[in-house]
C-alpha cells in the first residue's frame, strides 16, 4: 500500500522519466487515495517537470526529452484535471507566437506550465497577426499576454503589440511577458514588457508574480 508521498514521488518520476504509463497509473492512485488534485499536480507532476527543467539546463535533457516529459505530464493531467474544482476566477492568459514565425515548441511548453499553474489559457497558435493578440486580450479581459518568437526578424513585432495595446487603452490592464531564443531581459526592458523568462518553468512563477502584483 503506497503512502501518499510515494504516489507523489511516482507522479514526479513519471514526468521526469518521460513515462506516460507510470504517470497515468500514479494519477489514478492519487485519485483513489483522495490526495488533493492540486497537491498531486503541484507536488507531483510539477516537481517532475522542474527536475526535467534542471536536466535541460545541465544539458542532459534536450528538446526531445522535454517534449516527452510534457506528454507524460499531459497523461497525468488528463486524469486529474476533470476532478479539479476550479477556483471561481482563474487568471486568464493569452499566448501565441508572433506573426512571421512558426516555431511553437517553446510556446507549447510555456502553455503547459501556465495551464498547470492554474491559468485559463487562450492559445492563438503561431504566426499570429499582431492585432489578433490585442483583440483577444480585449475580448477575454486577459491578465497576462505571453509573446513568443524564435527569430530575430520578428522580435520587433513584440514592441508593436505593446504599442497597439497602448493605442487601444489596454496596456495597463494586462501584464506582457516575452520569451524565445533571441529575447533577453534587456530587450524586454527596452520594449516596455513587464517581464522576461528564460524558460518555461520560470514563466509560470513570473506570470503568477505579475498577476499578484496587479490584484
Amino acid at each position, binding site marked *: 500500500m503506497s503512502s501518499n508521498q510515494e504516489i507523489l514521488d511516482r507522479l514526479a518520476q513519471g514526468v521526469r522519466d518521460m513515462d506516460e504509463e507510470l504517470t497515468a497509473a500514479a494519477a489514478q492512485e492519487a485519485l483513489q487515495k483522495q490526495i488533493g488534485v492540486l497537491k498531486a499536480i503541484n507536488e507531483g507532476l510539477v516537481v517532475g517537470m522542474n527536475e526535467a527543467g534542471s536536466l535541460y539546463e545541465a544539458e542532459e535533457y534536450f*528538446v526531445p*526529452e522535454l*517534449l*516527452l516529459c510534457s506528454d507524460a505530464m499531459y497523461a497525468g493531467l488528463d486524469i486529474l484535471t476533470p476532478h479539479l474544482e476550479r477556483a471561481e476566477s482563474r487568471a486568464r492568459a493569452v499566448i501565441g507566437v508572433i506573426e512571421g514565425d512558426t516555431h511553437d*515548441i517553446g510556446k*507549447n511548453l510555456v502553455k503547459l506550465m501556465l495551464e498547470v499553474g492554474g491559468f485559463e489559457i487562450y492559445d492563438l497558435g503561431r504566426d499570429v497577426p499582431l492585432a489578433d493578440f490585442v483583440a483577444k486580450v480585449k475580448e477575454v479581459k486577459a491578465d497576462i499576454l505571453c509573446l513568443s518568437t524564435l527569430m*530575430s526578424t520578428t522580435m520587433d513585432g513584440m514592441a508593436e503589440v505593446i504599442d497597439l495595446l497602448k493605442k487601444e487603452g489596454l496596456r495597463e490592464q494586462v501584464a506582457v511577458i516575452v520569451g524565445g531564443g533571441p529575447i533577453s531581459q534587456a530587450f524586454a526592458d527596452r520594449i516596455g514588457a513587464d517581464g522576461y523568462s528564460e524558460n518555461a518553468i520560470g514563466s509560470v512563477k513570473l506570470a503568477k508574480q505579475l498577476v499578484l502584483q496587479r490584484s
Partner: protein
Amino acid sequence: MSNGVKSDRMTPKERMKSFAAGQEIDRIPCMPLIGDHACRLIGASVSSYSHSAELMAEGQIAVFRLYRPDGAGVGPGLFGIAEAMGTKLKFPEDGMPFVNEPVLKDWSDFSTLTPVDPYRDGRLPLFLKALRLINEQIGDQVGVGSSVGGPFTAAASLRGTEKFLKDLRRNPEMVHALLQLVTESALRYIDAVCDLGFKPSISEPTASGTLISATQFQEFAKPYLKMYADRIIERCGSGPMLHICGNTKRIWTDMADIGATILSLDNIIDLAEAKEAVGHRACLAGNVKPVETLMKGNREQIYAEAKECLRKTYDSPKGYILSSGCALALNTPQENVMALMDAARIYGSYPIDPEKLV
C-alpha cells in the same frame, strides 16, 4: 567601388578555384547567405519568386551583379525535398515559406511515401531550371551551387518537428527508415544538380545542438549527412559546405567527420573556438549577425564585426570565408550587404595586416 575600396583582382570563379586548390588568392572570400533576400532586388514577392525559375534566376543574377559574392545559386533549401514528397508548405506573400501540413501524420502512412523524381516532383524542376538560367548569364564569373536541406531537417518536415523529435526516443526504427528514404530523395536531387555541372551545399538547422544532443546528432543526422557528402565528393571531387544554425560546439568534430569542406556557423558560437577545434580539418565560414548587425546595423558596425571575425579566423589552417551567421533577413538593406563585401575587400586583402583588424 565605394569608400576607396580596392577592386577585386580575380573573379569569384577564379578566386574560389584557387582557394579550393590551396593556391594564392587576392582576398578572403565572402559569401553571405543571401537566400530569398534576392526578391528585394527585383521587386518580386517571395511567393511569386519561389514559384518561378525565371524570377529565381533573375533575382540571383541581380544579387551577383550588385554584390559580387563568391558564390551564386538557388536551391530547394530547407523544405523543398519534403515538399516534393508531399508535405504542404505555406507561402506568405512576403515572408519565408514554412511547413504547414507535414505529410506523415501516422507512421502507418510511411509506405505511401516514395523518393522524389527531381525532374517532376514539387518545385524541384524549377530549381534545376533556375540553375541553368543563372549559369548561362554569370557562370563564367562565379561558381553556381544549390542549397539543399539536410536529412534530419527534411525528415522533420515530413513528420512534423515536434512529433519527429519525440520519435527519436519513441520510434527510432521508423525514424531511421524515414531518414533513409529522405536520403534517397536527396541523392537523386544531388545527382541532378551534379549532372548539370553544379555543386550542392547542405543546410541542416533542425539537427542543431540547440535542439538535440551530440549523441542524437551522431545517431540520427551524421550517418545520413555523410551519405549526402559522400555523393557530392564522388560527383564533384570535394565535400560540400554544411550550414547548421544554433549551438554547434558539441558537433564540430562530427561535421568535419561527415566530409564537409566548409563548416558554415552561426553567430552564437565563437569562431576562435571553432578554429581551435576543427580549423585544421575544414574551412570555416561565418558568422556576422544577420539581424542585429546586417539588417539593423550600419557600415561601421558591419566593418567592426567583420574585422573581429577576420581577426579570429583569417589564419585558420584550412581557410576562412567571411559570411553571415545565418540566412540574411529579407529586408537587409542593400548598402549593408555591400558593406560586408567591402569589409572583405578592405580588411581581407592579402597580405592581411592583423594590426588593421583591431
